[in-house]
């Protein structure tokens, strides 16, 4: 038998929908039999209903505020933190890959340029790359290249032609990185010498030995019995290939830098 005290507690649970199962059945049975508890239930139900009625008494007009707030909620784009982290990670990876590609490209450019300079020199001396213009005139060669190259290239004139230690044989275009480079053929001490010229953006000087002359870095290397002197100046990169016996690396510098003999 359930006592009245318990029923009084259960009344509120019942009205709040929190009474269930066996307790609910016992409660209903007791209420049906007990007038006093039934009266209490009615009083409490009236009271609870009275509180509920108050909800409509809380009057407010926030229509403008609500309209603005609804708009803000609808426009809100959730930030995806994990996505942001993922994006940053991707960006870092992309950057590292980019740097890798750049370094690879840089290294391959160096390798390619000196390799190509040697290859062109060999093919030219074998007669596999005939000259497209045969002349000893720097001006004629410069004019011939004009309009054919994507860069401005002019052969410097030797200050005193009577003391010129080399002889210009002619020039031609050669392929380099999907573009053209300038190849100039010389003869010095009765030995062939070629100069390959390309824009610095697609060719980098490279060599085991580095020398500084007139604030320019010169690189000297020997490969397959050929000497390669390479350098960059004013947006162009040069590679001079020759096979002089008893090689004196100062001599080729005379081609463009007449004072080289003194300073290099």
């Amino acid at each position, binding site marked *: 038998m359930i006592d009245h005290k318990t029923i009084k507690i259960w009344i*509120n649970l019942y009205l709040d929908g929190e009474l269930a199962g066996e307790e609910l059945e016992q409660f209903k049975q007791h209420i049906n039999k007990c007038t006093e508890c039934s009266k209490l239930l009615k009083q409490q139900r009236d009271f609870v209903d009275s509180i*509920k009625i108050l909800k409509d008494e809380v009057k407010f007009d*926030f229509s403008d505020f*609500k309209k603005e707030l*609804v708009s803000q909620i609808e426009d809100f784009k959730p930030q995806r933190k994990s996505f942001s982290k993922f994006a940053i990670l991707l960006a870092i990876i992309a950057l590292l890959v980019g740097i890798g590609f750049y370094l690879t490209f840089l290294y391959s450019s160096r390798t390619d340029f000196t390799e190509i300079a040697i290859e062109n020199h060999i093919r030219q001396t074998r007669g596999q790359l005939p000259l497209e213009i045969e002349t000893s005139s720097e001006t004629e060669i410069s004019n011939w290249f004009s309009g054919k190259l994507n860069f401005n290239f002019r052969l410097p004139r030797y200050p005193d032609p009577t003391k010129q230690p080399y002889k210009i044989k002619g020039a031609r275009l050669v392929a380099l990185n999907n573009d053209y480079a300038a190849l100039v053929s010389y003869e010095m001490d009765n030995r062939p010498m070629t100069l390959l010229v390309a824009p610095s953006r697609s060719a980098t000087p490279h060599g085991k030995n580095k020398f500084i002359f007139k604030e320019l870095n010169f690189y000297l290397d020997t490969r397959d019995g050929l000497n390669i002197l390479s350098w960059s100046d004013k947006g162009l990169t040069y590679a001079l290939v020759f096979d002089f016996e008893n090689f004196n690396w100062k001599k080729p510098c005379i081609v463009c830098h007449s004072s080289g003999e003194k300073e290099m």
Partner: protein
Amino acid sequence: MSEKAKKEIIDALDSLLRYALIMTGNEEDAKDLVQETCYRALKNLNTLDENSNVRAWLFTIMRNIWLNQKKRQQISPIQVDDAIENKSDDWNINSEELLINNEMRQALLKALENLPDVYREILILRYFEDFSYSEISKILGCPLGTVMSRLNRAREKLKVNFVKIYEKKENDRS
């Protein structure tokens, strides 16, 4: 999930505004409270899953913000008053009578507004917003037993307050 949750937030705005208005006592504070609640909820939408009770979650956020504001104002939000005078089970006003009698409704509303925060909020959550004891327990961060006992005290206190206010009005009239 975020679009569904956003819709639930929008649907809960009236309830949140009512709760905020009763708890803060003025419209501007209520607007600020609801605005901040929505902002925090939207920022944390990714913490919800399909089974989340968004409405209860919103009330929890709002209550936490409100409590923090109270702390900053150095006002204790927990003012549980166990000593309820004139404990009485009697309630001789039926809801129909209350619906007709505007003066009686206003007295009951005033009695509710005058309740300590801790009682006012639990009555609102239960009888205005129809949250279950379990939901209220989560919103308030207290055990189920506390919800039951606090609700009991809140109801008794409301009765006492109402009687005082209504009797005073009657006396003033006579």
